[in-house]
């Protein structure tokens, strides 16, 4: 059995440690100038060179020509301490995970006072130091603080925050980092060259991606690929297959199905994923990455090629279309669902079932409680209004309704952004509204106050007026200021709601500013009624009538602006308007 690559290519000098210049340079300088501390702490994620650096540090310190950052490699100590060498009596490597008890620490403390056998220093490398028990760590405190002159401690750990702070404060802390992709790729190419294996273009980036920036992960994966290499070396196809990456075509198929909101195709794509032997978890992960790419493409459009450099141009174009079809909000929602589902996939649950559930969640917005409640709420209101009259007195107090509306609002916003094509979507008033995209202009001001009221009662609608005004306020302040003090519901039939506005000026600016659309959305939100808004001048409107008056909060008066303020405070009238442009 040959050595695994990550052991074979373990560095023996600081110059061989890649991507950690922020640590190796200061350490080399310290060795050069002889400013050596008695305790070091190396921390960082898995496989970025902590243990290796600790060993190199020991080798550099104990070199006969040292301490030097470039150990000679000829003296006995250097030969002993070379990577995969026999080791030296004076460099004691301890695994805190198996020797983390207080007795082990006491023994260490007692032995530390003996002089080194044949080197300059006696060096304790305490690996996986986060597993040091509290008793053991405390027992070490004194000796770590003031060790005999010949003793040095090097702690190495992936989780420095788990190490008690009193140990940390006695050490020089050097945080290691994950290795940037460029540096890692160069290193991997060197390894491939010295292994004498040809590696196809595009394979190294795959390995870098799979490793997540950890050198050991990268070399583990590379070892796996080299093992599977044929006569032509490692081809791209072999790499994709061995690493289990999902075929790009399958991902495209799934994304296209989501864009088209086509459940049948999506579930068939999943069936294909499973039947072709892909790992459902791997697929979900790749799917999440694709969604992330789509979000980026959707956000930056033109310059996407600069950020997603590894993706070819035609693929980017396809992704651009997909991103617009799905919509940013929906993409983000989907990504959230997939990310949450990915954590649920841990453990032994049938992964296929989970994957299908994730897809169901993506396809069918409104499966969750919040949007459901909002829908029921809307339905109930419509029913209340149609029944009108007596039952209204027994409906929930306005305050409660207000809170519900507030709560459901974000949901509604989200829904309106989605393309309403799903079968069920048709039942959703908010989504129906999206389908009827044609802008509705306010009808000519015909006096309609005398028209017989339809099944929906104007009186019932007036009860909702304060709530509607509140809703409008959130949408656009201008509309709110136009409506709040000078408008009320005049009549309603099965086609339109007629609003009476006190003066012609306010009405004109109401229509001009497109406020009717705002009011219409507010009506949909609060009552579930999707009707045209018609506007008439109704000077008789007694806006101070308590039943439908919305008193302007005195403190709010200064929030009015422009013409509204002038009209209100000075009784100004609009004589003419000029176009600014």
């Amino acid at each position, binding site marked *: 059995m040959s050595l695994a690559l990550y052991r074979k290519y373990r560095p023996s000098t600081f110059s061989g440690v890649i991507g950690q210049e922020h640590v190796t340079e200061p350490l080399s300088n310290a060795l050069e100038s002889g400013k050596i501390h008695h305790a070091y702490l190396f921390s960082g994620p898995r*496989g970025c060179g902590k243990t290796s650096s600790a060993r190199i540090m020991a080798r550099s310190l104990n070199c006969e020509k040292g301490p030097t950052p470039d150990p000679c490699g000829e003296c006995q100590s250097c030969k002993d301490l070379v990577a995969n060498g026999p080791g030296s009596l004076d460099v004691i490597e301890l695994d805190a995970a198996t020797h983390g008890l207080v007795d082990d620490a006491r023994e260490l403390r007692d032995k530390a006072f003996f002089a080194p056998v044949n080197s300059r220093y006696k060096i304790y490398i305490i690996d996986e130091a986060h597993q040091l028990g509290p008793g053991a760590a405390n027992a070490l405190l004194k000796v770590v603080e003031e060790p005999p002159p010949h003793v040095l401690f090097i702690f190495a750990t992936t989780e420095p925050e788990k190490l008690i702070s009193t140990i940390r404060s006695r050490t020089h802390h050097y945080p290691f980092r994950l290795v940037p992709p460029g540096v890692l790729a160069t290193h991997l190419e060197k390894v491939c060259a010295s292994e004498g294996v040809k590696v196809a273009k595009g394979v190294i980036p795959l390995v870098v991606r799979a490793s997540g920036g950890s050198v050991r992960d990268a070399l583990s994966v590379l070892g796996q690929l080299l093992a599977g290499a044929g006569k032509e070396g490692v081809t791209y196809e072999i790499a994709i297959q061995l690493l289990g990456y999902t075929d790009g075509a399958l991902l495209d198929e799934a994304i296209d199905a989501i864009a088209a909101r086509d459940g049948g195709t999506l579930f068939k794509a999943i069936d294909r994923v499973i039947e072709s032997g892909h790992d459902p978890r791997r697929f979900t992960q790749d799917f999440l990455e694709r969604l992330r790419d789509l979000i980026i493409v959707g956000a930056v459009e033109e310059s996407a090629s600069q950020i997603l450099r590894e993706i070819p141009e035609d693929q980017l174009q396809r992704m651009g279309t997909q991103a617009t079809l799905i919509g940013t909000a929906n993409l983000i929602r989907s990504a959230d669902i997939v990310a949450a589902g990915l954590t649920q996939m841990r453990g032994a649950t049938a992964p296929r079932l989970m994957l299908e559930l994730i897809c169901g969640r993506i396809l069918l917005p409104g499966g969750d409680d919040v949007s459901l409640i909002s829908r029921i709420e809307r339905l109930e209101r419509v029913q209340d209004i149609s029944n009108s009259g007596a039952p209204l007195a027994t409906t929930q107090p306005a305050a409660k309704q207000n809170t519900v509306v507030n709560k459901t609002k974000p949901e509604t916003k989200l829904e309106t952004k989605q393309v309403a094509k799903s079968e069920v979507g048709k039942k959703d008033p908010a989504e129906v509204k999206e389908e009827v995209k044609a802008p509705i202009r306010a009808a000519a001001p015909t006096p309609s106050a005398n028209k017989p009221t339809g099944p929906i009662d104007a009186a019932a609608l007036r009860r909702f007026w304060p709530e509607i005004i509140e809703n409008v306020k959130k949408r656009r302040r201008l509309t709110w200021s136009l409506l709040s003090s000078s408008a009320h519901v005049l009549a309603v039939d099965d086609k339109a709601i007629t609003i009476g506005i006190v003066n012609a000026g306010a009405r004109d600016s109401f229509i001009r500013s497109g406020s009717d659309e705002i009011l219409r959305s507010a009506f949909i939100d609060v009552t579930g009624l999707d009707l045209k808004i018609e506007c008439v001048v109704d000077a008789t409107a007694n806006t101070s009538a308590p039943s439908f008056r919305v008193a302007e909060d005195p403190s709010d008066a200064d929030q009015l602006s422009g013409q509204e303020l002038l009209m209100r405070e000075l009784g100004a009238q609009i004589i003419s308007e000029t176009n600014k442009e």
Partner: protein
Amino acid sequence: MSVFDLLVDQGHVVSVLLEAVAASKEKNNSSQEMTHAWLFTGPPGSGRSSAALAFAAALVCGKSGCNNCLDCKTALTGSHADVELVRTQGLSIKIDEVRELIGRASWSPSVGNYRVVVIEDADRLTESAANALLKAIEEPGLRTVWLMCAPSATDVLPTIRSRTRSLVLRTPSIAAVVALLEKEDFSQPMANFAARASQGHIGRARHLAKNTEARSRREAILKISLLITDVASAFKAAQVLVDAAKAEAEDETEKDASAELTALKEAWGEQGSRLTQGGSKAVKELEKDQKSRATRTVRDYLDRALLDIATLYRDVLLIQSDSKETTINIDLISEITNLANNSTPQATLRKLEAIMSARTNLAHNAAPLLTIEALMVSLK
């Protein structure tokens, strides 16, 4: 006949393992085919541990896994001198066990070429136990090989993952499971039904095909959820399900429990009613252990039942999305179609979510009856 024939539909893994075995037999082989630490991942029922054991057998066998010699046979049952099999019935593998294991793992092989340590549930290693393994699996003795199994790579520490070479087993395809069952003399329709109902879990498929009782139990569970029409029937259904779970748990544990207890008492020298010193403590510990095992059995049973019910609604959802080919519960297809026509996909999805959250609650030790009642009411 090779040990790898025991794996169903795992061609890609077998080929990697065969190369590794071939490389392991050559002296001075410097290629990367063979390495010292492997991580087998795959969904339940895909045969992770069988794969690891087969690999272990092939490594210690003189003929690369003939499945005939003594080495192979003992390795597969875990009694080979150089194959250390770590299995647990409890909830976790503790650090003390691991410390001992590390000591033994560094011994030289006694008869074969390799000492192989197989950890069947690496996901059940406690955090400290997993940390204790790190150094050992990074730089083990020259002829020690570590094989670990876990449902997915995220179930083990990232520091373990980065030290091992990962092998992903696939869920066996329905066709492969059907073929396997047919080879074992089950009729085609039965094989087809069992393969689908078990979703590629070979052990469950075989169990379903062989065992009429298991089949009727599964059907009863599925029917329970179909019969709920109002709140009253929902509560009744919940009661039935929980009772069934408890009965099953009692059945299963009673059998072993009394035997275990007698054995333990004997070991502590029961004479009349008196045990030697320390005996009563051991008996008490065993009783506690048995009780926690019973709780786990109830929970596992309910979890399985809920997953079965979830597959039912999953079928409904798929039919509602015009995707009929992959139906899991083909025996109930008419009921499922009926259900699909009378509800919306949204409602189905909501029911699925309710089942999943009930499973989470059960896993967090919620009262089983309450949880199931809440679930059944939301399924109505």
